[in-house]
């Protein structure tokens, strides 16, 4: 059962923003717990770190659900068995018609690589999705800091 598919509409208000902290915390903590339970003795720190990082992006994408293009792209990427490297390097031709000249274009291209699904977006969509993606990243960082803080307190 893919528990990630369960939509959690943490937004009781009609806030279009995707930063639902309770939903994010729920997903992330559950993933952490699972990682902890399934970590074998002597398994490498690197492997665990990779799983945690994956869980972080998964909880971000799950909290935003399918409402956002970036979260849909992230969910697709996380669920596909073989990650395609460099798939979103170049923007598609259609998107280019709404892009801006020279220096803006360079930056816009860089941005497309950074935002999940950015390669296929129109320029305006890219800007909007970016703002939301940043908000969500902020929330995820806040959450992880809180968890580190919480766990850190315990170890002391």
């Amino acid at each position, binding site marked *: 059962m893919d528990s990630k598919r369960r939509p959690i509409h943490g937004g009781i208000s009609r806030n279009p923003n995707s930063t639902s902290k309770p939903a994010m915390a729920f997903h992330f903590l559950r993933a952490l717990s699972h990682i*902890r339970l399934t970590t074998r003795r002597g398994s490498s720190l690197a492997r665990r770190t990779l799983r*945690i*990082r994956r869980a972080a992006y998964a909880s971000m994408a799950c909290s935003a659900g399918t409402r956002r293009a970036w979260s849909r792209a992230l969910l697709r990427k996380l669920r596909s068995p073989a990650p395609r490297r460099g798939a979103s390097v170049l923007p598609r031709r259609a998107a280019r018609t709404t892009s*801006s000249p020279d220096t803006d274009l360079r930056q816009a291209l860089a941005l497309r690589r950074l935002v999940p699904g950015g390669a296929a977006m129109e*320029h305006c969509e890219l800007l909007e999705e970016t*703002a939301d993606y*940043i908000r969500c990243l902020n929330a995820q960082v806040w959450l992880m800091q809180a968890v580190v803080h919480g766990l850190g307190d315990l170890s002391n």
Partner: protein
Amino acid sequence: MSSRRSRSRQSSSSRITDEQIIDLMSKLQAVLPEARLARNDRVSAARVLQETCSHIRSLHREVDDLGERLSELLATTDISSAQAAVIRSLLM
């Protein structure tokens, strides 16, 4: 903004107005931290995009670093009481 001229020349299928672009740019500026760009300053589109890329990269790095710290902590902490403590701290 120099970009304004070329945008109005291009005929895109979705009628994007300059106002929309400006509006979206300012919204983007609003989510960037004050240290990068003063919120009320009129800065060039290129600058906003540049700072945005920079900010996203640093956020990605933070997620990576925090992930590593969590990985270390998970190995050494009793998770059941940890979860309770974390949930408590998140709810306060």
